[in-house]
């Protein structure tokens, strides 16, 4: 029986962001941008969608007089990611 895949996560960039954040406590926006190879604008749009879904927290602050954006996955995001991976497994040949 195939389980439905979470549409928020089932997109290339949003899944990449969540996969990066699942392994760390928090990461800077610039790091995520570098690792995903996405443009700042596109990444910003996708991260807003993840934030609206409650999957990530975005904290804007200053570090040594420069603006810094910190992103971290939320407990809701962790649960959604785990459910997504579980659902994905049902599609794979056994």
């Amino acid at each position, binding site marked *: 029986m195939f389980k439905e*895949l979470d549409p928020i996560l*089932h*997109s290339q*960039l*949003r899944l990449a962001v969540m*996969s990066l954040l699942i392994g*760390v406590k928090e990461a800077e926006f610039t790091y995520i941008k570098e690792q995903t190879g996405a443009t700042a604008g596109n990444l910003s749009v996708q991260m807003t969608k993840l934030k609206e879904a409650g999957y990530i927290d975005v904290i804007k602050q200053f570090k040594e007089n420069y603006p810094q954006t910190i992103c971290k996955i939320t407990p809701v995001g962790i649960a959604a990611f785990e459910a997504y991976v579980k659902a994905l497994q049902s599609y794979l040949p056994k």
Partner: protein
Amino acid sequence: MQEKQLSEQESLLIIQQMIGRARNEFVDTGIGPILWGAVITFCSLFQFAQIHFHLHPPFDIWFLALLAIIPQIFISVKEKRARRVKGWDDDILGYVWLCFGVGVVLVNVINNVASHDINPIIRQYREMTGAEVGNFWTFGTAYLMFVYGFPTIITGASRKFHLMTVGGIVCWVSALIAAFTPTKFDFLLMAVSAALAWLIPGIILRKKYLAQKKQGNV
């Protein structure tokens, strides 16, 4: 990377790739372990030579370990500034090493107070009976190596760096052996422990870090 719908295989590939990249970010620069491994190994070997050749230098070589705190502070601040990702266990490991630092100072203070009180009694007993009894420092080094093992094993195990875990276990085994060997050889055991726990793992970490840096992964 663009916004597009994915096949299940593509999803799995992205998850694998990204988790792997996040893991690469936790490659230690290796400078800290190299610094402390080199300093403690050198001081221990110097102390061994001092006892073996009956040398009386006008300084205490262990002040070098105190001086090493200064570059360590600079290294820690620089690495913290450069780090763009924080791992789940970063804070915990930070506290573990902070407790280790405090623990080493406490053990040294307690050892010095104990040796100050106990060594004269042992010396008197030795003179009276002619028995070959070591002074307090025969056991003091064992306590220190026991403390060295703790954070090393925890860091090695949590970062899955087996060589460091083995180095920490060597510290504990050395602590046990040091309880039965003369003080002079305790310092040789300490040199081996520091080299295996920090210096050699540090060099390996450094090589790994430089290789990753060359590839542009860190």
